[in-house]
């Protein structure tokens, strides 16, 4: 039996609206996991998603490995962030590699166990899905405004120059990715 308790879960908006019994059923899908050292891998890109994670402590980086062996950093996620949560709604391969920047403590939500709750039409699973959608819709709105403003309606010349501080459109896109992926300070 997991030692994960209601008090710590109530810190996270993804469990908003879940009662004690619902949290108990969700806890059965969870386990604790830690990343001890900088560079420790949480998951590799292109691998089928099997879990979502809540970052309780520490900082993670999401990066895209390229063919030349170099990885491009795309986003950073800290305490409070939910990582890889889309797989709880719809499966698919991971789009990015995620690893630790320093020691990190996480709660792992097993996709298979969560799917079983979903199959049973358990309101606990659907409350989580609804909360994920709610958060994502909010982030999507900001992201789509950015895409519309910076990538569609401006000429490349305008988009490439510095208009938000001394940053390029690529740097601003990276900042938007961090927000979309739930960066928490």
């Amino acid at each position: 039996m997991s030692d994960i308790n209601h008090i710590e879960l109530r810190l996270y908006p993804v469990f908003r609206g879940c009662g004690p019994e619902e949290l108990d059923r969700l806890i059965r899908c969870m386990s604790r996991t830690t990343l001890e050292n900088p560079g420790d891998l949480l998951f590799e890109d292109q691998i089928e998603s099997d879990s979502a994670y809540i970052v309780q402590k520490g900082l993670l980086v999401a990066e895209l490995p390229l063919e030349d062996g170099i990885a491009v950093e795309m986003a950073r996620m800290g305490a409070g962030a939910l990582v890889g949560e889309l797989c709880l709604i719809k499966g698919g391969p991971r789009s990015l590699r995620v690893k630790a920047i320093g020691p990190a403590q996480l709660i792992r939500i097993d996709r298979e166990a969560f799917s079983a709750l979903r199959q049973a039409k358990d309101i606990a699973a659907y409350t989580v899905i609804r909360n994920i959608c709610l958060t994502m819709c909010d982030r999507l709105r900001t992201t789509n405004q950015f895409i519309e403003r910076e990538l569609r309606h401006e000429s490349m010349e305008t988009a490439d120059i510095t208009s938000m501080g001394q940053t390029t459109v690529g740097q601003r896109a990276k900042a938007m990715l961090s927000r979309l992926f739930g960066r928490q300070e």
Partner: protein
Amino acid sequence: MDANRLRFIQVFDNFDDRELELLASVMHARSYVGGETVFRRGDRASACFVVLAGAIDVKVEGQKNMDSNTVATLTPGSMFGEIALVDGGLRSATCQASASGAELALLGRNEFDQIFNAGSPFAFKLMDLIGERVVERVRKAAGELLSVVLNERGGSVMFKAD
């Protein structure tokens, strides 16, 4: 509204007769004359819609003037505005009945909340549908942003987010 009218809607293919009856009991049909606005961009979203008959034009404002451009036309069976059921944010486009008019089935956010909180399996089926659409949109948006980051790094890589 009559459940039979929902029977041909593709998004409700997995719904059995009882679920369709329940859905029909919380949805209602409304007719729109040609050119009539269903909602405008920026309106607070409070319902989702299914096209029963006719067509709906999805419009966005023109870039340099206030004329609207049709970016999509939704035909019978199409569902739109469904994100409103979880979000209730602002509409991102304007929807108008096409010249020949349209008939829509509406599901309000309050009605959805009611059936969701009551634990109705068909509310969860709708949630599955909404969830999948949200995931597709997030992955598409993330893919666009990743492509921008990669392109700036050099070359013209197109990233496909899965």
